[in-house]
């Protein structure tokens, strides 16, 4: 089984990535990077990462989230986060990245806050 499984769906012009697994150095981080790169190449710039199924992330995975955020912003798009687990929320809090990322508990809230 892959370290990180990513399923893609559309909600209007917003692409939702439902992620399940771990975003860690190696396979998990690479899978996220590849998915974001491919979406940007396809012109899909508004992306919601559903992290409900991500129980673990390391510093490499956190770096990949930052890299994704920067790459999407550079293309004029938006990246938002959905359904952080408590551990992931704690990690983004201590690294002060919750001040950077828009994170939502419900998908309807997240989708309505894309401009």
């Amino acid at each position, binding site marked *: 089984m892959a370290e990180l499984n990513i399923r893609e769906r559309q909600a209007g012009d917003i692409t939702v990535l439902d992620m399940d697994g771990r975003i860690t150095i190696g396979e998990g981080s690479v899978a996220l990077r590849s998915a974001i790169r491919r979406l940007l190449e396809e012109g899909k710039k508004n992306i919601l990462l559903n992290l409900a199924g991500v129980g673990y992330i390391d510093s490499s995975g956190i770096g990949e989230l*930052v890299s994704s955020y920067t790459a999407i912003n550079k293309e004029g798009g938006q990246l938002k986060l959905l359904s952080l687990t408590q551990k992931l929320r704690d990690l983004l809090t201590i690294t002060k990245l919750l001040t950077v990322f828009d994170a939502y508990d419900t998908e309807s809230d997240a989708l309505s806050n894309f401009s």
Partner: protein
Amino acid sequence: MTEQTSRLVLPSHIEAVTDAAAAATDFVQSCGVAEEAAFGIDMAVREAITNAMVHGNKEDEAKTVEVTLNCLENAFEIEVKDQGEGFDPTSVPDPTDPANIMKTSGRGIFLMRSFMDEVQWSMRPEGGTTVRMVKKF
């Protein structure tokens, strides 16, 4: 808490990090460490091994990383040894500083310090760096 020791010797390639972290997690659980502390230990072990492989041994597969896990009566102790050229932990900037917050790397040591009670680095006379971390219970 059952006092016991586990030692792993790993090749310096990234794929080994996940297996080593899983082995460390199994060992931590066998020691009876509470889940919240186990998560922090797992995180610190993973980051220390990654640093040793990537920044210490520069992913040179001829070099190994040695991990020793000690489950003590009131603490969990971890030592990670690389065969690199040395490391100055003070050279790593604070990743929570606004100037660094959007950097894509440089958070591993911060996380190790966040989750463990003690983190110390030392250079061995024969070469290589040892990082020793302690989580008290």
